[in-house]
């Protein structure tokens, strides 16, 4: 009777079981060969690990748990797994026996892995699924439809795993630019010295490997629907991929548990993929219906995609219109027309002494300086403005390189009637732009204040900053897309702005929901390494003008190289000061009422010296 079930589906599971069992048996033997790992005085000691054992296990009683999972008794689990694995490899095992052995594999895996928690990987998960599928299939010996469903489940799990892996890599900037490859392979844990040396100085090769991996993993599910030769090619590529990972990454167990799913994928592929039909055969009624549904499916998919695209476009238009209304309704400063477009500026041109000109950090509107304004002397003249697209300023056409940024600021100051000398205050990348302005208009500049400012060589000299850059770019992009769709999570993304004084906090937070600021920030991200840094580096001497540098302690803690770079900013002039602000972060240095007075104090120091300098020239 048992032999009657030895059909296609049984053949699939026979292969799944055998492949998975080879890996599981080797794994069990490896565990037994390094059994001391589970001893009471080693890393996976049960007296320690039982602290995070599941609560419901405790109802069994601590003595029983100790008897099962304490050393050396716990080794009975890998021993059982080894025997069950060998049993599944033996020819002539009945279906009932195979079902029981596969269930044993699941039970022991659950016990062992829940006890261990550490030292597990994706191959263990996939092996569990394979054995679980195999055991479930044996519960329905007479139901081909149910057995088929289990095969589909395994194939779907395999496709989901590969696709997820490819999609997660596609979403990663370090995978897209290929730097993930030397990054991973330089480690001893998952890398290989030979492979690392091969890709280290060949970015094109690293990028090729990265994109081949992404494309291969994303394409894997196509094995379900493509013609047989293509499907076979995809599976062969998958197997070669795992063998390569076993050699160069030490992922030997993945070969067995992942390749074990391929028979299930191939079986479903045969059912779903295109079939050769004999022209002599008349189409059956059912086939006609299938043909009908085959024509309907793409239409339905097109309709769905079209509806989705229309919804996204509608949301974007709505947000843009709403954003324009919000911009017009609540502008904290004034809108000045410069170069044919509106620029938002907050200015106080009446007063005395040098005019303070603020240059913001990336994606920061002028209102970010609110606490600093409050800390300045009442008669201080100042101008803060939003660069194109940021805050309440209209976007500009074309790239805003250092030349155009300086020219735009020069024209704005002239329009506002802001009198020189200017004390330029730049936060973050704003520090680069004030150097560019000072180099082009030295006669107008009385002093420079750098507020946790970027250094022109920052990306070249700080590995940490270099590594962060693609993630920052990715964050700007994702924030922009979320803003377009109205899905911006306020507290996390806009946190620093909410600490500004009322009512500017609410106005700024509301304004930062507009996608334009984030789109502008993305554009500035590309100008920063291309134009702004190189241009700023040309100012190597502030010409004796006073220079104040404020550094956030939090930035130095994250990146020690930052301290050296900040000291170099202070060295631009013989008349300089450099303050490290304890407890401050890159943003809170300006936007937190606790730290902003440090900035106001540095500005007052610089203005005083700039005024003396101006007086002595007169």
């Amino acid at each position, binding site marked *: 009777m048992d032999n009657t079930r030895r059909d296609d589906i049984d053949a699939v599971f026979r292969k799944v079981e055998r492949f998975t069992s080879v890996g599981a048996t080797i794994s069990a033997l490896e565990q037994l060969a390094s059994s001391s790992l589970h001893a009471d005085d080693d890393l996976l000691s049960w007296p320690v690990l039982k602290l995070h054992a599941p609560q419901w296990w405790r109802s069994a009683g601590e003595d029983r748990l100790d008897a099962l999972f304490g050393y050396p008794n716990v080794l009975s689990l890998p021993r059982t797994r080894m025997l069950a694995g060998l049993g599944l490899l033996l020819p002539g095992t009945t279906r009932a026996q195979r079902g029981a052995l596969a269930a044993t594999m699941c039970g022991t895996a659950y016990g062992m892995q829940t006890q261990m928690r550490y030292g597990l990987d994706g191959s263990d998960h996939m092996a569990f699924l394979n054995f679980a599928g195999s055991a479930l299939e044996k519960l329905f010996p007479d*139901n081909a439809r*149910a057995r088929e469903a289990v095969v589909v489940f395994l194939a779907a799990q395999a496709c989901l795993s590969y696709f997820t*892996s490819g999609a997660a890599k596609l979403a990663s900037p370090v995978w897209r630019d290929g730097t993930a490859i030397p990054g991973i392979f330089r480690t001893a844990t*998952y890398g*290989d010295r030979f492979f690392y040396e091969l890709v280290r100085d060949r970015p094109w090769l690293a990028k090729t490997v990265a994109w081949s991996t992404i494309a291969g993993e994303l394409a894997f599910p196509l094995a379900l629907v493509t013609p047989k030769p293509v499907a076979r090619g995809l599976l062969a590529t998958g197997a070669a991929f795992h063998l390569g990972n076993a050699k160069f990454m030490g992922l030997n167990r993945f070969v067995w548990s992942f390749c074990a799913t391929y028979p299930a994928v191939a079986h479903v592929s045969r059912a779903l993929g295109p079939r050769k039909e004999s022209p002599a055969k008349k189409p059956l009624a059912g086939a006609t219906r299938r043909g009908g549904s085959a024509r309907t499916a793409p239409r339905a998919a097109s309709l769905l995609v079209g509806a989705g695209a229309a919804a996204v476009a509608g949301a974007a238009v709505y947000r843009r219109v709403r954003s324009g209304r919000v911009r017009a309704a609540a502008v904290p400063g004034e809108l000045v027309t410069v170069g044919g477009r509106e620029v938002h500026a907050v200015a106080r041109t009446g007063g005395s002494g040098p005019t303070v000109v603020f240059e913001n950090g990336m994606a920061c509107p002028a209102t970010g300086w609110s606490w600093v304004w409050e800390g300045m002397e009442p008669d201080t003249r100042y101008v803060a403005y939003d660069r194109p697209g940021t805050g309440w300023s209209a976007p500009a056409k074309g790239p805003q390189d250092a030349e155009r940024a300086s020219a735009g600021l020069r024209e704005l100051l002239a329009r506002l009637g802001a009198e020189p000398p200017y004390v330029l205050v730049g936060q973050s990348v704003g520090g680069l732009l004030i150097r560019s302005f000072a180099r082009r208009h030295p006669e107008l500049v009385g002093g420079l204040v750098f507020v946790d400012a970027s250094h022109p060589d920052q990306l070249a000299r700080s590995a940490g900053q270099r590594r962060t850059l693609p993630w920052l770019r990715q964050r700007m992009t994702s924030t922009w897309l979320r803003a377009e769709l109205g899905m911006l999570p306020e507290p996390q993304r806009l946190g620093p702005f909410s600490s500004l004084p009322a009512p500017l906090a609410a106005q700024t937070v509301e304004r930062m929901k507009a996608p334009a600021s984030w789109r502008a920030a993305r554009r500035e991200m590309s100008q920063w390494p291309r134009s702004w840094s190189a241009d700023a580096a040309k100012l190597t001497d502030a010409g004796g003008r006073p220079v104040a540098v404020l550094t956030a302690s939090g930035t130095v803690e994250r990146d020690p190289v930052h301290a050296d770079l900040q000291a170099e900013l202070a060295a631009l002039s013989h008349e300089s000061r450099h303050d490290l602000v304890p407890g401050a972060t890159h943003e809170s240095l300006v936007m937190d009422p606790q730290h902003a007075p440090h900035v106001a104090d540095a500005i007052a120091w610089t203005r005083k010296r700039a005024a003396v300098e101006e007086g002595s020239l007169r």
Partner: protein
Amino acid sequence: MRRHSGASLAAEAALYGLLGTWFALTVGQQFKKRPRFLERVDPGNVTLPVSTFFAPRPGTTDTHLLVRDELLDGSTTEWAEYPVSQDRSLRQMVWHPNRRREKALCDVQNDLAFLVRQDKGPEHIHMTVPYLALLNFVSHRCPHAPDSRRVQFLLVASGGHDETEEPDVLFASDFHTLDTEGR
């Protein structure tokens, strides 16, 4: 064609429900969405694979475990590294018994580094499983000087084969008294 009884139809429906739910939970797991009951039933996450392998942020550093002793006279020994990783070989493609230890140590260290990044106080960290597991390990499995009194361990991140990058200290434990009776 064999007819199915009501019971077998119910069993079949239950199977579809199980497989569908399992697959849906696996999809959710990729987005770190996980029902609370699974935390109780399957806290080690044996049943649901997470397939975002090496992405979006792949690990690009090795974590090293260093140990030193405080001697009876109050002086301390030099930091000594406990070697874990082995160079790759063809044999490891089939037989790699050290891999579990490598991965377990890596997981424990990452777990501890995660707690440190969360700014949990030392009182909290000293009572956690990764801290106790490492302390247990360095106390008993790492060599100690005969006149050692207490032990301390250090986690250091390095660029692995990239020797141009400066190592970075991730975590330093307190000194803990060694059980000298067993030695």
